[in-house]
């Protein structure tokens, strides 16, 4: 191997030495970073700039140069409300319905999911029978495509679905789950928890397994109750992992789109329309295509996500430092 590598290294060495002489050792680092920076610029930074540019333009033309500059009009349209608590008082009521739906969804979904994920992780961390099997079972939905998840639950919950057939069989009678706003929203939360819980369970399980055994043994010797052990040992030592899980789940919750779009289409009415679906519909599915409004809305979401990401980075750094 060295027989091949050595001559190659010698060939590269000559221009690298020349570059180092020209730029100095510190500046040479930029040469190594350049390919990555170019890719990042092209696929991450440029789209952000384009998004910002679109948000400042109007019309329905997709070509940026053919779009009139409208300044902050799109942001003004999105934020013009007599009361932000009541979407009916907003010019763009659909945006605020989507915002509130997303906030409710994220609050419920993240709360329930993280709670259940923790419970499941604690159970799976014990020495129970068929532990490997149950770990796989809880993780399995994570492997499914969001559209598959949506279709499975749609077949179960539709008017002539499996659930109604079962309810009919036991004599309760069926219900049209997906055309009632409250039920549709509740099932959307359930579906999302079912689909993603396994991933967070796995992270929490890893966090639990990282807690040293001897701490529990010491608690046992001190005759601490299981509840006290959980409250005073498990929870504090798991909190760094919990925080990461919470922030990741929050970001993922705000980004929810595909599985809900395939599940309810955002209906009934706008009951399960979340912010990403609103952006998609304004920009790509509706007529006329309001790219400017969609870009402005997506920038606002991006700001929220950046804040959440910064919180996660801060938490990570604190954990590393602490």
């Amino acid at each position: 191997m060295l027989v091949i590598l050595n001559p190659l290294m010698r060939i590269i060495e000559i221009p690298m030495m020349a570059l180092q002489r020209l730029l100095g050792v510190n500046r040479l680092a930029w040469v190594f970073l350049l390919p990555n920076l170019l890719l990042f610029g092209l696929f991450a930074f440029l789209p952000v700039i384009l998004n910002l540019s679109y948000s400042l333009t109007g019309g329905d033309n997709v070509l940026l140069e053919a779009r009139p500059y409208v300044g902050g009009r799109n942001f003004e349209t999105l934020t013009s409300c007599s009361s932000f608590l009541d979407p009916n008082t907003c010019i763009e009521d659909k945006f605020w319905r989507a915002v509130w739906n997303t906030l409710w969804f994220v609050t419920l979904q993240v709360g329930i999911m993280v709670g259940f994920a923790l419970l499941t992780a604690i159970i799976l961390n014990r020495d129970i029978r068929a532990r490997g099997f149950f770990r796989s079972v809880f993780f399995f939905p994570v492997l499914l495509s969001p559209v598959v998840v949506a279709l499975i639950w749609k077949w179960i919950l539709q008017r002539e679905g499996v659930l109604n057939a079962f309810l009919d069989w036991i004599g309760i009678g069926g219900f049209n789950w997906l055309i009632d706003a409250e039920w549709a929203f509740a099932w959307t939360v359930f579906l999302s928890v079912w689909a993603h819980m396994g991933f967070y369970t796995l992270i929490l399980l890893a966090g639990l397994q990282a807690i040293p055994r001897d701490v529990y043994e010491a608690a046992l010797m001190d005759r601490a109750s299981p509840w006290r052990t959980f409250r005073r040992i498990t929870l504090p030592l798991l909190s760094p992992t919990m925080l990461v899980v919470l922030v990741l789940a929050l970001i993922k919750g705000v980004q929810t789109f595909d599985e809900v779009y395939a599940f309810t289409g955002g209906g009934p009415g706008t009951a399960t329309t979340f912010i990403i679906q609103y952006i998609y519909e304004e920009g790509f599915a509706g007529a006329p295509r309001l790219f400017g409004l969609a870009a402005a809305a997506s920038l606002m979401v991006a700001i929220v996500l950046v804040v959440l990401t910064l919180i996660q980075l801060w938490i990570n750094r604190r954990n590393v430092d602490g």
Partner: protein
Amino acid sequence: MKQRILTTTLLTSAMLAGAGAVSAQEVRFMCYSDGNECEVYEDVLNRFEAENEGITVAIDVVPYQAILENLPVQLAAGTGPDIAKVTDLGGLNEYYLDLTPYVDAGYWEASFGDTLDWYRGGDDRQGIYGMHSQLTITGAFINATLFEQAGIEIPGEDATWAEWAEAARAVAEATDTPFPMAIDRSGHRVAGPAISYGAALFNEDGEAILVDDGFRAFVQQFVDWHEDGTMARDVWAGQGGATYQDAAQEFINGELVFYYSGSWQVGRMNEQVGDFFDWQVVGSPCGPAGACSGMPGGAGIVGFAQTDHPEAVAAVIDFLAQEDIYAEVTARTSNLPAHLGVAAAGVTYEGVSEGAQAALNAFAGDLPDVAPAAFAYQGYAGNRAMFGITVERVSQAIVGELTVDQAMERAAADLQAAMAETE
């Protein structure tokens, strides 16, 4: 040896140049099917290729959603196909190739008459931009077997929406059928009934208004029918946004008495209902305003100005527009003809039952009842925006997010905003 190499090189170069010339005349046709349209086009265009050496037509069969969502973006970016089958007839006018210099304009005017207007945009009343390949009209299907089982007489030709609703409710109750009525979740589908309730859709100056007293009256009735169980709630409340949803499956399953959809469903009914029950087409019921209007519509074949081969594109579309070819395609695809000559001669549809033939004739017979406002609406370039607004706001009223008045206020504001954005 040298000479042999030279000859071989020259021959190869000539062949490659020939191949280049042929591929230079390749025309890409973006096609979607309601039934078997693309398959039939491929077959007849093989004959075109045989008659027109040097032009090849490559048909890209895509889902309908791609025509609605991807094609406009491709056209805006200048990467669209040469030809496409479209339904947003006037909305994409800015990209169309004017066929006038390449075709016999007199023949086209005589054959396609008013439908040519649907493809024109702005003040242009002269250009030839598209061939209306399949004319459709909205109307109602009824489950005649359920009427018979219930012992209730089928309402007559001039029956109103209210009379049909009453009859459908009575039949559903007598036969324990889940849904008396359903209308597809589409702004296009409710336009005909709304016109029958007095909706004008445009003001005296020809500007789109969508909401007026007639439109509001129909929406109020439609919402009331959802509340009292006359309309199948699953169709309009089971989706969000402006997503299309039909109720064909409920009708085919025998769960629906009266289904308001359109002529394009005849093939599906013919194929999937079979002997399960007797179905009939009863056209569009009448409204309080006196009209009994359905909505015309359909799809057409258009060429795009960004093509490198305008003459070849025009030749392909002109070939499909010839009376014998158009008649053959219509007969094989079970569509209503927009070609006046083909319509006048009558169409004997291939491979359809007597019931389906009668249904297609019934739809064709409904065309004279279509109100002028319905034709104007179909030809209006901004109709897709109006259809979308209708679906979104009416759905919100149906599920109780907005009152009918609030929904109509929002619909009018949405339309104004959309028009301002596209001006």
